[in-house]
């Protein structure tokens, strides 16, 4: 067995990397560059870098200027998301044991290095509940629960996560949005932009496809208008122009800047998602609608049960690209002088103690952005293969 395997690998290497002189030279050069980069990074991360700046500013990078002593508001959401991640992996993904152990080890190292005391305890609890949720939902049969029910619970859990977080942030005095910051702010902005886009985008797409001109043209106008300017333009508009345009009517000019950013993100992502979903609508064969009509289903039922689910499935890769773009675009609110992750990073490197430590900080936030984006694109490709089979 092993012999065949190694032979195969050698064969593959010979065929693909060293099949002729030109190929061999390219392989050697490529290998050299890869090793150079790898060792350079390795040396920097473990020897040259001084992670003090990240350790000292860890709270700033994660939470911004979130009031000290109010972190409890985030703990339930954190634990719930870990549980949901555990359940989702168990239901939809086939991670093997090695991958899971690796994942936990990495998480643990990150938090052991950067956190101490109470915070690391909470993170520890969250990770452990995630693992427990994974193990328990892996053995769902023992609890006489059907897989479908488990899926439903998980999906509802994800849907309820954002409202729950918002409620916890507002009850009992609450933490004003002006104190939100760090990667937490990016996550909230992206979550709200994406959720709002998922709700309003398909509606706009249907509106644009509508036969009623009084619905159709306003939708077209809105979509084209929004798409005609860059996001940062709309953010600046919301920040500087609107307050002067809108008189103090309804106190619109006093709406908090973070809320304005949220409104802009929802409005912006809705327009883009609308166009993506419209592509999906057009890709459906007209026989689908006709089959629904022939059964006597009304317009609403046809749209809701037949058209929309298929249209969205057809465009999942494009939708996820849009989500990833929006996630990274949340850094643009830095221009509104909010301390989101990038703003927090800049604040950290501006500290006199840490002059010249930009690389450490930016490497750290790059890893954060990359991790989230990568997870989203993995979910997307997972969904594609599953939905290709018609499965949930």
């Amino acid at each position, binding site marked *: 067995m092993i012999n065949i395997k190694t032979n195969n690998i050698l064969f593959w290497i010979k065929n693909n990397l060293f099949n002729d002189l030109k190929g061999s030279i390219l392989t050697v050069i490529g290998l050299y560059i890869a090793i150079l980069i790898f060792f350079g990074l390795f040396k920097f991360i473990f020897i040259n870098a001084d992670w003090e700046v990240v350790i000292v500013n860890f709270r700033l990078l994660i939470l911004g200027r979130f009031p000290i002593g109010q972190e409890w508001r985030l703990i339930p959401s954190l634990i719930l998301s870990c549980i949901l991640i555990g359940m989702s992996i168990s239901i939809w993904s086939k991670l093997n044991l090695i991958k899971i152990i690796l994942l936990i080890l990495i998480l643990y190292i990150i938090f052991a290095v950067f956190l101490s005391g109470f915070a690391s305890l909470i993170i520890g609890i969250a990770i452990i509940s995630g693992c427990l949720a994974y193990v328990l939902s892996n053995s769902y049969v023992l609890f006489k629960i059907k897989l479908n029910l488990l899926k439903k619970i998980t999906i509802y859990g994800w849907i309820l996560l954002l409202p729950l977080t918002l409620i916890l942030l507002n009850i009992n005095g609450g933490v004003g949005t002006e104190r939100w910051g760090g990667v937490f702010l990016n996550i909230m902005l992206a979550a709200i932009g994406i959720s709002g886009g998922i709700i309003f985008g398909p509606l706009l797409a249907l509106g644009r496809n509508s036969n009623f001109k009084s619905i159709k043209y306003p939708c077209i106008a809105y979509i084209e208008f929004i798409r005609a300017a860059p996001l940062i333009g709309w953010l600046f508009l919301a920040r500087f122009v609107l307050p002067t345009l809108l008189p103090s009517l309804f106190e619109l000019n006093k709406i908090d800047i973070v809320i304005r950013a949220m409104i802009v993100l929802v409005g912006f992502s809705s327009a883009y998602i609308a166009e993506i979903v419209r592509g999906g609508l057009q890709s459906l064969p007209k026989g689908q609608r006709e089959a629904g009509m022939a*059964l006597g289903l009304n317009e609403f039922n046809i749209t809701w049960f037949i058209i929309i689910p298929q249209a969205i499935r057809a465009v999942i890769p494009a939708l996820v690209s849009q989500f990833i773009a929006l996630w990274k675009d949340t850094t643009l609110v830095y221009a509104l002088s909010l301390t989101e992750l990038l703003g927090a990073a800049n604040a950290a490197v501006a500290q006199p103690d840490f002059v010249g430590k930009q690389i450490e900080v930016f490497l750290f936030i790059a890893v954060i952005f990359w991790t989230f984006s990568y997870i989203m694109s993995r979910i997307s490709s997972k969904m594609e293969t599953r939905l290709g*089979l018609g499965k949930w």
Partner: protein
Amino acid sequence: MVNKDNNNKNITTNKKIIICENVEKWYGQFQALKGITTSIKEGEVVVIFGPSGSGKSTFIRTLNRLEPHDKGSIKIDGIEINDDVEDLEKLRSNVGMVFQQFNLFPHLTVLRNISLAPQKVKNLSKKESEGLAFELLERVGIPEQAYKFPGQLSGGQQQRVAIARALAMQPKIMLFDEPTSALDPEMIKEVLEVMTKLAKSGMTMIVVTHEMGFGKEVADRFIFFDEGLIVEEGTAKQVFNNPKEERTKLFLSQIL
């Protein structure tokens, strides 16, 4: 060969369930139906055949108003079908339709494909509608496929699900638009068998098809379409043995 002329099965009443008078249909400048007048009795099985582009699909699609007609009148079960028809959805649920391309909902399981409309249109409970779905799957011979998705079935199985789906609304009339022409030869038979059973159970059926073996076995009447008109109609004997029109003769000589 059983010829339908002496088949005494199913036309129990003489009630005309479909009455078409001078039905016309235009696509822009092109006239697809040029005045169709015919009527169909309860329990009758009618096969429509004719050259490509002759308006067969257009005609049966006017019967459930997937295509609104422009002139003339269509009455289904006593109700005139036009823009004022009160409850188009109700009319449509009384007229089942099976398409050439199956048009199953690919994102739903077979079970859900069948039980969706009874739930949403007839307000059956999930349990009732799924019970009904299993009964129908039994009837079309694939109860074991209930939890699969359409993409996991063969063409013949998909078309049988489509038939079950249409039957789930308990329609009075079933329309079939070339139900076997997208199928591989070895699957045509299984679908025709289901349709034959249905015909023999007394269902009113209008079938666009060129499967004349099936037609001769179950059809009470054949209608030959050409260029948007009914050129000839009659029993198998009349149409196949003594066609009156040259066009019919020519067409039959090409397909038989």
